[in-house]
């Protein structure tokens, strides 16, 4: 039961991230929930905008591959602000290792899962659904 809940939360986290498409408010279903890809590279652009924040990362999977631009989307600025993000959480040029749930179709995009800023070791996560689930009150 706990595993089911964890899986649902993971799926919803992906949903909140939305896929890298031109459209807002997507389901999570185009992401491969069973796989995590770790990318290493540098932030090209961090678009802090409704309804979904977008990261363009110039890099490649740590398992190998030619560098290219990856499109990674997250939830809305409001939901990210509530878990401690800001529009300056990432900056162009920041070197990162980033975990994403990749698109099923193999395109270079995915849903944000976590990122480590290599300069500081700071880890950013975006699991706002789990937080809403706890009903964390002050």
């Amino acid at each position, binding site marked *: 039961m706990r595993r089911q*809940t964890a899986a*649902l*939360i993971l799926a*919803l986290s992906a*949903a*909140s991230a939305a896929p*890298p*498409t*031109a*459209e*807002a*408010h*997507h*389901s999570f*279903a*185009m992401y491969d929930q069973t796989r995590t890809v770790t990318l290493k590279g540098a932030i*090209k*652009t961090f*678009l802090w*905008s*409704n*309804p*979904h924040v*977008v990261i*363009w990362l110039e890099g490649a999977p740590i398992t190998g591959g030619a560098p290219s*631009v990856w*499109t990674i989307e997250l*939830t*809305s*600025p*409001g*939901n990210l*602000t*509530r878990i*401690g993000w800001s529009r300056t959480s990432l900056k162009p040029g920041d070197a990162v290792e980033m975990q994403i749930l990749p698109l*099923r*179709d193999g*395109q*270079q*995009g995915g849903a944000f899962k976590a990122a480590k800023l290599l300069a500081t070791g700071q880890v950013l996560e975006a699991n706002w*659904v789990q937080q*809403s*689930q706890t*009903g*964390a*009150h*002050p």
Partner: protein
Amino acid sequence: MTLRRPLIALCLSLWTTAGFASEPGQAVNPAPTPKDWAAIAALPDWSGVWVPDVVDQFRKVNTNAPPWNSKAAQEASALTAAEQAGHPKGLFVDCLPDGLPALMLIAHNPLEFVFSPGRVLVLGESDGDRQRRIYTDGRGHPADPDPTFYGHSIGHWEGDTLVVDTVGVLPETYVAVSESVGVANNGDLHVVERLHLTAPDTLTDDLTITAPHELTAPWKTSRIFYRHRERQYEIGEGVCLQGKFAESVDSHGDAVFIPLQYAADGSPLPPKP
């Protein structure tokens, strides 16, 4: 020229006085009295920001699905299959508002309630500064309301429960169970909500959704929202269309929005500096 201006002013004056401002019987909203404001203070405290329990939204759908009619069931089933196959149809991909009842059923962003004499405002964010206006001044529904995304809502208090009755919703709004599974209500939608605290920081919305063209019976379901008082939880601006643009500077040195460009697979391309 000098003659024309007084003539225009005279015409406007006649048009205003004869046609609109002093029309007998036209309803007006009286200025609130100190007693009206005092009545607000006696209402339950719904201040703060109310975050939807998103996991519970899915739990409720899995245990109490809408009573779709056969046509709607087929559509919902096809959408579910597409979602499970990894090719979901996005119901809200056009940046139009969620509308009712989807906002209360499946939204991922929080709500805020503002009590004022004669009305309750429900504010939100993300897909375009969500805004519901619930009249609590005793009025009824218009005989033929202009259809809107959130409809025409009237409310009254039964103890600490706000009872909201909504009609006049656009037929295109979805009876949605997720962001990719839902069926247009197709008209004559009627939503009754009973909003009340079920714990000091838990708000429950008990909904009865009547959609006679899609449901075989009224769908009774509920949704849960948790209160947060931290300032970082406050509702922010949510202009959905902004996501289709990047910020740039034009040839005059003026700040401008430029449309994002997209790759063949639909992925947005990074904006050019």
